[in-house]
């Protein structure tokens, strides 16, 4: 065995959307970081659609961007098509979505990682996380190399024990043609004692645009004018880029018939898949089965890149055998003569129960081990990126022996996401929706910078050169919100602008009463969240709790009284009781100290 002499602070296992953000954030905070991935050429690969953002997800990208993450900036560099979703509805639910050139996205991200000081990237597969006294101390790789580290961040995506299903054919794989991480999965469950679960997701087929009859599609052109997804992208420059279009078509009765005749041949209904898939991303056979009365489902054609004729067909995710997939394509108006380039498939993979994590994403089972992304039972690039960023920040803070950085539910969708995961757990791949946020009016696309950049500057996640412009912008929005007007502001505000400030102030005024109400509620929550559950105090042992509540408290091990109150089924009286017992515990401690 070769033992690498370098002492790392943070090792990130996996180079997907979570891993990349984690590695960048940790390195930025000064942690000596290593990113290990099976294949450097698939770093930040978009394994499913070639798009970033979407409803609620777009807000997450804006939050990642405001916290110094790279997803938004890379998206703007790879952008092929901009669309602001939900503009027909209120600004609280406006969400940006950007179609990207998959290849440009990947190598832009890889280049960013290569340029980042404190960060090494290395192509190798981790097979074991090594520990001493219940704490992480290193990783072993397939090449029999040992790396020493204080913390490990697992961002294994769909690779942990991955199995690919196409009809009845099953092959090991984390993505088509990419090997799964089988040994690591064994190590995590058998040696480290993580509670592994099995989830499923899927992807549709890709087709060659040659032979498409565009006259049968509805065109969705790129927005003009556009809004970049990153706060730091100059919209005037971005506007000069060349854009591609997306197209909308739909399934037919013929599609329906093909699916019905072949149900038993799909991996989903043939009996090969037993794990839980996301209800939000159903396969097309799922849609037909569950909603037989709907005879036409929309399909959305997304270009895979500027240098390819391949299209991704959103809405056509399937685990049918290849012959059925070919027939399905031929049944869609405009695609009759299109040829399939890659078949759709389902993938099953291992993930770990997120209830075993603290809100700063460190494991309660193994000290120094962090998990982010699909391993926590989520789905989506944006959800993964948000967790990766938070895990990266917190691993670095832990090494530096600083307080963890946790976002509250009223501060960010990322806060909602992580709190949901660690407090309630998951029973299907978790996707963000605006309906999950009780403070939806506070968590908007237009105020991600105002919400989160103060944190980012304080932590050192954002370049100081933006700080004075941001402070000016913030002051300007305050002036405008009060209804006062302001004169010329000039270029010193860039990348912000007076128009942006005006737009923000208008939205704020529209929601003013609701904003205040949300904020008041949030303050109440912050008060209970400020009550930390002291070390050594076991909430589940409190007498008088309802039996079910005690059980749940034992599993979740909440960090604050607020988190305890959000565990489903825990009653206000339980919380009242805990409040008294926590105070009692503190006083007893004090008495013991003085004695």
């Amino acid at each position: 065995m070769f033992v690498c002499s370098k002492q790392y602070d943070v090792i990130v296992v996996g180079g997907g959307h979570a891993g990349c953000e984690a590695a960048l954030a940790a390195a930025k905070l000064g942690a000596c970081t290593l990113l290990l991935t099976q294949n450097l050429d698939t770093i930040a690969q978009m394994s499913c659609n070639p798009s970033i953002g979407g409803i609620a997800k777009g807000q997450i990208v804006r939050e990642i961007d405001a916290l110094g993450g790279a997803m938004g900036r890379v998206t703007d560099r790879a952008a092929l098509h901009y669309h602001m979703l939900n503009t027909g509805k209120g600004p609280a639910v406006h969400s940006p979505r950007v179609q990207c050139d998959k290849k440009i996205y990947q190598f832009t991200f890889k280049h960013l990682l290569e340029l980042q000081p404190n960060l090494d990237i290395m192509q190798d597969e981790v097979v074991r996380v090594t520990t001493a006294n219940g704490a992480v101390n290193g990783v072993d790789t397939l090449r029999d190399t040992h790396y020493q580290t204080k913390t490990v961040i697992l961002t294994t995506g769909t690779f942990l024990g991955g199995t690919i299903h196409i009809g009845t054919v099953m092959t090991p794989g984390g993505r088509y043609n990419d090997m799964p991480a089988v040994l690591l999965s064994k190590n995590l469950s058998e040696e480290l004692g993580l509670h592994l679960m099995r989830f499923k997701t899927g992807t549709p087929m890709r087709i060659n645009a040659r032979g498409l009859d565009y006259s049968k599609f509805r065109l969705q052109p790129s927005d003009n004018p556009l809004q970049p997804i990153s706060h730091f992208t100059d919209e005037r420059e971005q506007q000069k880029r060349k854009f591609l279009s997306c197209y909308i078509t739909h399934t037919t009765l013929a599609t329906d018939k093909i699916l019905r005749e072949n149900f038993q041949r799909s991996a989903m209904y043939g009996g090969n898949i037993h794990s839980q898939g996301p209800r939000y991303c159903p396969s097309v056979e799922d849609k037909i089965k569950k909603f037989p009365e709907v005879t036409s489902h929309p399909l959305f054609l997304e270009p895979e890149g500027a240098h390819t004729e391949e299209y991704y067909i959103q809405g056509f995710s399937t685990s049918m055998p290849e012959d059925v997939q070919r027939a399905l394509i031929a049944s869609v108006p405009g695609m009759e003569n299109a040829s399939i380039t890659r078949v759709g498939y389902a993938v099953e993979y291992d993930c770990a129960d997120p209830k075993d994590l603290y809100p700063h994403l460190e494991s309660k089972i193994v000290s120094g081990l962090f998990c982010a992304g699909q391993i926590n039972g989520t789905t989506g690039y944006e959800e993964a990126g948000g967790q990766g960023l938070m895990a990266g920040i917190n691993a670095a803070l832990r090494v530096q022996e600083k307080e963890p950085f946790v976002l509250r539910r009223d501060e960010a969708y990322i806060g909602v996401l992580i709190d949901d995961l660690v407090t309630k757990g998951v029973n299907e791949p978790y996707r963000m929706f605006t309906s999950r946020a009780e403070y939806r009016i506070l968590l908007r696309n237009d105020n991600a910078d105002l919400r989160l950049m103060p944190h980012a500057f304080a932590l050192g996640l954002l370049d100081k050169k933006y700080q004075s412009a941001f402070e000016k912008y913030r002051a300007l929005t305050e002036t405008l919100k009060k209804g006062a007007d302001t004169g010329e502001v000039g270029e010193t505000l860039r990348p912000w602008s007076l128009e942006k400030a005006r737009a923000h102030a208008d939205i704020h005024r529209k929601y003013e009463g609701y904003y205040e109400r949300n904020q008041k509620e949030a303050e109440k929550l912050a008060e209970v969240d400020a009550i930390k559950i002291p070390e050594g105090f076991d909430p589940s042992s409190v007498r008088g709790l309802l039996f079910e509540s005690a059980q749940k408290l034992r599993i979740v091990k909440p960090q604050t009284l607020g988190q305890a109150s959000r565990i489903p089924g825990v009653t206000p009286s339980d919380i009242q009781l805990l409040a008294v017992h926590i105070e009692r515990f503190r006083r007893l401690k004090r008495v013991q100290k003085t004695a």
Partner: protein
Amino acid sequence: MQSTICAKASGQGGAVALVRLSGPDALVLTHTLTAKTLILEPRRQTFCSLYDGKSVLDKALVTYFRAPHSFTGEDVVEFALHASPYIVGRLLELLCRAGAVPAKRGEFSQRAFLNGKMDLVEAQGLCDLIASGNKAAHRVAMASLDGKLSEKLGEVKTKLTDLLAQIEVRLDDADEEMPPLCSDSIRQTIEDVLTSIKTLTDTFSVGRLMKDGLKVALVGAPNSGKSSLLNALVGFDRAIVTDQSGTTRDTVEEAIEINGHKIVLTDTAGIRSHALDLAEQEGIRRSRRAMEKADVILFVLDASREIITEEQALWTDIQKQQKRTILVLNKCDKAPAPVPALENTATYTRVVVSCKKGEGMDELKKVLTAPLQAVATDGLLISHLRHYEELLRAQTELEGALLQIDQKAGGEIYAEHIRGALAHLKDLLGEVTPDDVLDVIFSKFCVGK
């Protein structure tokens, strides 16, 4: 920001009841009930009038304790009142209307402990108290409520959750393909729910019962002894609060007090002064009207004779009312009381009395006020008041939603109000989580990429 909580702090019985109000707004809330100019010096008792609107609710001794020199360590106001369940209930209701929150069991002591006003030994008792409240509340939540009530609650929950799902699915729809929700249908659903909530507040309205009294209609054939029953009830208690003539010149309303509860008796006497055939029609009409307004119906029967056709017809009418009904078998001194030869009487409470001899009156009074006694027990009064307040707050939310629909404010705004209403109803309906809403969405709509 801590809420300001209130509750009755003294036990059952006695001539004086103590209501405690604790929290940052204690003084402000007190001034909503007293003269604006009233100065309350800390730790000094002040004798003053408490107003319910323009009328005086009670004259009370009010004491203000400034934080931290109080039981809870917060600003506290204590009211020493006349121990009438109506006065106490109404005071709590008024305080809640002004912004106070009914205290949970043990909450005063909890605050006292957290503010360092109680030592560790005392804390154990407090924990036991909260724990017992926890179990009791859990039992209440688990116990199947009265059939109709739980049905209505279920209806409210389903309707609001479904409506929220309808709105949320559109807010979270990336395809932008779904037809917008028609605002008339949103309005209709909300109005339906408001109607249901109204039914519920009517049921729960302890405050109303205590303020206006329990309305009791005395019905029966002429000469069955309604008037003597009225006299017997009134005479026994002698505590006539008011003596007002009814809505029609021939209906008599007598307000009496039984065990501290206000009871308004309505007698449909005097119909015999008309021509016979007309009188019968008029009698039925008046009985009906009295029954419609009543909370309880006393059907008075002459036990000494057979059921007559008039009583058969009246019984059919009574059953249609679907109200709490007590069968009063009068004149039991003359003959032993048989089970009346009427349909479906088995499930109704029967009380045997003799107005002449005054027999059975105690029993009748006990039966009559039993539901009021139940709500007047300390803990339950609070919990019902809580529920009542929650329903009213939910109602305000939904009315707010209707206003926003008029202004076409948008789904995310309607959702705020519906979520608000559901949050207020959490104790009554159980929590409706985002996952519950998503469950509805995924079961009803084919959404997703």
